[in-house]
């Protein structure tokens, strides 16, 4: 379990993190979303016990990260931003070092190290020095050191950054596999990742929490939530049909994807009427799709300017 109360970090005049309060339970995967420089990494560094908060507090499994720092660090695995590791060490030596520093001794250490090597497919690079590894392998070594002691709490700062799509897929599977009994915080600026691994998402910008909801709830905030999009050869006919449905608020046409999108009035469902009307008018469509919402659009609205502030007010209320 991770809990923060009014967690803040100031550097002189600059407030990097401004009164962040949240609680994550075991079994939850919290996605930390936000533009670059929003305060995601600083928040994670404070929870990991690397930076001391300027104000407020954080605790991990009941251990305060400042007053009871060692106990908090013991139950936590942390992948810092950029997955730093000692370049001159071999993968094996590095994992053994971290396991030893984490107090795992003897046969158990060998077994734990073997286990993470298996999970992250590091067999082929065990005797290679880390500085000679590719970016993807370096990231996986970083992940391996974070989970070598099977921690109850995992803090991963951009775990899939720099990985190719296959590796991203594997890392997400790994996170999902561990999610059942652990408390996990993942920071990312890849929106699809939130849908792929997170049970909950916090959007943060300028050091403040602007939204705290499940990925589905965030999508529901999109104006494209429950929107209907289609592709057709009979563009004029389809446009005409869409504009005749009462609950359609607007119709958009994307000239690149050649896709028509009908946006519903808030809270209304338009899929059934559109589908029926198209059929009765005999307009053939290649594809007809109900959208759940567009994460990138929600992200932009929340993190940009005034509208973001409004939503922040709403989130607090």
């Amino acid at each position: 379990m991770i809990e923060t109360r009014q967690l803040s970090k100031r550097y002189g005049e600059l407030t990097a993190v401004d009164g962040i309060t949240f609680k994550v339970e075991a079994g939850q995967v919290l996605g930390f979303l936000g533009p670059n420089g929003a305060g995601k990494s600083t928040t994670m560094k404070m929870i990991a016990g690397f930076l001391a908060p300027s104000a407020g507090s954080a605790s991990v499994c009941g251990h305060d990260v400042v007053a009871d720092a060692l106990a908090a660090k013991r139950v936590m695995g942390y992948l810092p931003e950029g997955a730093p590791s000692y370049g001159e060490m071999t993968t094996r030596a590095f994992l053994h070092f971290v396991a030893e520093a984490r107090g795992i001794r003897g046969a158990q250490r060998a077994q734990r190290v073997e286990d993470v090597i298996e999970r992250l497919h590091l067999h082929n690079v065990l005797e290679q020095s880390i500085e000679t590894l590719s970016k993807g392998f370096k990231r996986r070594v970083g992940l391996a050191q974070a989970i070598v002691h099977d921690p109850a709490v995992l803090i991963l700062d951009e775990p899939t950054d720099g990985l190719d799509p296959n590796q991203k897929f594997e890392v997400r599977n790994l996170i999902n596999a561990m999610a059942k009994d652990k408390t996990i915080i993942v920071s990312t600026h890849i929106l699809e990742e939130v849908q792929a691994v997170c049970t909950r998402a916090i959007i943060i910008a300028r050091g403040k929490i602007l939204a705290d909801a499940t990925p589905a709830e965030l999508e529901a905030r999109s104006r494209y939530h429950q929107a209907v999009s289609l592709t057709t050869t009979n563009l004029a006919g389809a446009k005409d049909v869409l504009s005749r449905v009462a609950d359609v608020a607007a119709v958009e046409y994307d000239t690149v994807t050649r896709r028509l999108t009908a946006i519903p009035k808030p809270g209304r469902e338009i899929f059934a009427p559109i589908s029926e009307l198209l059929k009765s008018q005999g307009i053939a469509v290649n594809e007809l799709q109900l959208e759940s919402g567009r994460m990138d659009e929600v992200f932009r609205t929340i993190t940009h300017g005034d509208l973001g502030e409004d939503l922040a007010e709403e989130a607090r209320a």
Partner: protein
Amino acid sequence: MSNIYTVFKRELASYFATPVAYVFIVIFLLLAGAFTFYIGNFYERGQADLLPFFNFHPWLYLFLVPAVGMRLWSEERKSGTIELLLTLPITMWQAVVGKFFAAWAFIGIALALTFPVWITVNYLGSPDNGVIFASYLGSFLMAGAFLAIGSCISACTRNQVVAFILTVVVCFLFLLAGYPLVLNAISVVAPQGLVDAVSGLSFLTHFAAIAKGVIDVRDLIYFALTIAFWLYASAVVIDLKKAD
């Protein structure tokens, strides 16, 4: 204790995983030999002691020890591994002390490898081996003091070159603290009491005292306190500067 050992082991192994260790040891041995035999006139003096050998140690250390110390923390900061190290369940002082001991042990290994000089002098004559032992001890302690300064300055910057140059300067001032170069400059602005205090801080005076073969507790305490002070300062600096 086991945490210090874990950090120590990793750090010491890292010296030997790169060419740093071998370059350092070879250069150290070559220079120590050159100073002893050519500049120190080891043979010409015709005396069975290692004075010409140990006399040059402070000057050798002045450049070589900062080269070892400069990477202690600036490299951790530059590569970001400091974040990894300090989020492991080890305390700050365990990390500082473990890394320091590793670097010190490394210099100790280089120093121990000068043993052929000791064999030579024993082959040529019958020196007072007690004095030689004391000199080795004094030399090792002095290296530790240099290194502790290096640790602290290395914690101040992520640039190793800056760390090296500043460490050389600070070590130079400590080396010569008992000499007119430093004392005259201080006496212009400071009262006599402070001038005396500064003159007592000189590495050279304390090293010379031990190298004479007299292991005075005060000299040992002096080096121990110097090392402890600079290591404490290292921990403070790391804590203050780890955010940037």
